[in-house]
């Protein structure tokens, strides 16, 4: 009853002619738009989004690469620095070692020289001493000879000497 009244209202009574036309119009529009509008539009939208996404990804990748490159550079730089430091240190060490060695060798040589000089001096000294001794002995004999010759020329003196000698023997 209520439904009947509602349907009698000109606003609420559907007309099949309009339904058929609406259906036809909408389906045709749907079909044509699907084929000629939505398909290319959605496709190009998706393509564009994809290309934008790709560009963003690419940029991010490049940025990462740059960052890694930079850190690599830094690493290399640090490596080079430490290497340089090492080389410098080594060089310094070698230098010191060389200097030390040279000094060592020089002092040894000097010592050797000094030692041989000392030995020479010693030898020369001993030789001189020996010569001196010999000459002293010769001189003493000569002196003794001369003294004896002198002493024995006088009879009295000979007697005195003999007597002295005898006295000495007697005392013994």
């Amino acid at each position, binding site marked *: 009853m209520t439904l009947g009244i509602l349907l009698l209202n000109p606003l609420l*009574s559907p007309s099949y002619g*309009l339904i058929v036309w609406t259906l036809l119009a909408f389906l045709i529009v749907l079909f044509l738009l699907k084929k000629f509008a*939505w398909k290319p539009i959605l496709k190009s939208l998706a393509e564009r989004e994809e290309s934008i996404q790709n560009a963003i990804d690419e940029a991010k990748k490049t940025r990462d690469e740059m960052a890694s490159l930079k850190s690599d550079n830094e690493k290399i730089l640090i490596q080079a620095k430490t290497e340089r430091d090492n080389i410098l240190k080594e060089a310094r060490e070698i230098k010191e070692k060389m200097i030390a060695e040279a000094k060592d060798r020089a002092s040894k040589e000097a010592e050797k020289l000094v030692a041989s000089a000392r030995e020479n001096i010693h030898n020369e000294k001993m030789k001189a001493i020996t010569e001196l001794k010999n000459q002293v002995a010769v001189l003493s004999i000569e002196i003794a000879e001369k003294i004896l010759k002198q002493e024995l020329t006088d009879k009295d003196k000979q007697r005195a000497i003999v007597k002295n000698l005898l006295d000495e023997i007697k005392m013994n």
Partner: protein
Amino acid sequence: MYSFARDSRNLKEFMIKRLRIFTLLSFISGFILVPEISFSQEKDSTGAVKKEEGFDAGKFIIDHVTDKYEWHIMGSHEDPVSIPLPLILYSKKNGLDIFLSSNFHHGKEAYNGYALNHEGHIEREDGASFYDFSITKAVTTLLLVSIIVLLLFISVAKSYTRRAGQAPKGFQSLIEPFILFVRDDIAKQSIGEKHYKKFLPLLLTQFFFIWVANTIGLIPSFPGVMGNISVTFTLAAIVLIITLLIGNKHYWQHIFWMPGVPAWVKISLLTPIEIIGVFQRPFVLMIRIFANIAAGHIVILSFICLIFVFSAKGDAAGWGFSPVSMIFALFMNAMELLVAFLQAFVFTLLTALYIGSCLEEPHHAEEHHK
């Protein structure tokens, strides 16, 4: 009796003055409607076709929101300025009849055994049944909407293919946010990543078809086709058929035999409610858009009619009230512009939600019920 002729002239002058103040929107509605009513009043005063004293706003409004066999522009119903529309009628006796509605001479004459009754419906003089597939005002508007939508989007599609890989430009960049809106915020959200692509053409077509139809309906003398129950019935029926066809096992199981609920509850309560729900959802879809658009048009027309309701009480009342009326009509027109978009959005969103519910995968619900 005062002179209606002078009244109408004054009214016209007054209208023209006011036009400078108000926007184009109310300008058009005022311009189209006012002469029409003044004409009919003039006719009344001369006594040529005198029917009733005063102005019947209800009849006038209903006359404007229902479908017609001719495109009425201005003038009285008996002698209007109107565009005749083609009638397509079929009866078993007469066969197919195609002729222009002008052959009826606005209901004064019969043609080929058909005649217009005083309510504006076609009847056969012998009372026999017939089929009516006439290109009415609503059908004309629908065809116009279809052509506009087709031209619009096929040209947009062309600019997409022509400018492939480039940034959108011109009209393309105006439309693109809406396409993306339907795709990302309606389809993807409601249907889900897996299935949404298949339904995008339907949802996009629905959205723009309804939006364009609603917006065109705001142009005075154009009918709000989405305020016609036959049109919304058809659109909702399409949604119903789609949901019936695509529903998966999980969806039907939940309608006919909800798991985890005692059998007697299912038989006595749940299953009947769910079965009603299947039809109720598209039904609500049909009513919502119909009621919104029809009501919007009725309200705007009511505000316009108020001028003539008041002017029937006296010149001053009519003049005095017309600015108020126009402000309200302007406000309503602006709001209808928003409603035009909103109803297109709501219809599309709900369609997407129904489709989404039909395709829902069982993994969430199953755990829930066990």
